[in-house]
């Protein structure tokens, strides 16, 4: 039964990812659609970050938001994204077990 579930989940996750590569590739889209598409990554980023970040650390929204703000500040000076990812994880690991949050 679990393998049937996995097969079904495979189809419904792969097909939406696949279709645009088959059909939208060279489609001549009107200029307004192209402009619209250009904003997708930024709008998606905003919605991916917030409000999800508040629940990133179980039971500790303030710590999670703090780590996010720290990441944003670091990103002003550091171009290396790996460093920022490691830093945010380290901060959460350090402070996760304090009860002040």
């Amino acid at each position, binding site marked *: *039964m679990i393998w*049937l*579930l*996995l*097969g*079904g*989940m*495979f189809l*419904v*996750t792969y097909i*939406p*990812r*696949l*279709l*645009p*590569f*088959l059909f*939208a*590739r060279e489609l001549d*889209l009107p200029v307004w659609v192209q*402009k*619209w*598409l*250009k*904003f*997708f*990554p*930024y*709008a*998606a*980023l*905003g*919605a*991916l*970050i*917030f*409000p999800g*970040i508040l629940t*990133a*650390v*179980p039971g500790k929204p303030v710590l*999670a938001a703090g*780590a*996010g703000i720290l*990441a*944003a500040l*670091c*990103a*002003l000076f*550091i171009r290396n*994204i*790996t460093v920022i*990812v*490691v*830093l*945010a*994880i380290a901060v*959460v*690991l350090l402070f*996760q077990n304090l009860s002040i949050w």
Partner: protein
Amino acid sequence: MRRSALRWGFSNGLPIALGYLPVAVTFGILGNQSGLSVAAVTGMSAWVYAGASQFLAVKMIADGIGTLEIILATLILNFRHFLMSTVLARRLGVSRLEGAALSYWVTDETFVVASLHAAAEEPKPLGFLIMALMAYLSWLTGTFAGGMFAELIPVRIVDGMGIGLYALFIALLVPSARKHWQFALVAAASALTAWGLSRLLPGLSEGWVLIAATLGVSALGTLLPGAEEES
């Protein structure tokens, strides 16, 4: 050219792989706790490869919800990748066959990295493949480790390490937002829209929230002055 694609792939794949690892371990542990075998959780990561949907699925399995309902919930939550693939399909410049393979590794994270316009270099298909495979291997390894050593790893700790992916998103957003205020405004408005939608309509799937915020706020973005030149 090949060399720069390799470098692009590795340098962009590394932060995603690091961000995925603890999340995958958490998934492996939770899958184990809901009664799935190590083979089944690892198989789900290998063949479904859809972060949030996988967490939802193991929760639904644990709650005894039926197969069809889980598949439907997965479709809804993952349909956002249709939008993401549409952007990537036009940007990566690949043949149908290459696209069919690469599309399997389109995730929120690989999409964002490969589609940001402020990126210094255009992603090449080879670079995308390397980045995507690093992410995928990290996801598989983490899931396997989490499922295998579920009893040994404190789930609360690894769960909190999921902050890494948010740091990744933020670190990706900041440089583009500084360069073009239009992108900053769109991202902020979209975050608020997502928050508002999830407050107003608590029953709405996260997938729909993301789709609605992306489509709606991007449309408003096209009305911003100067939106024509930024590309």
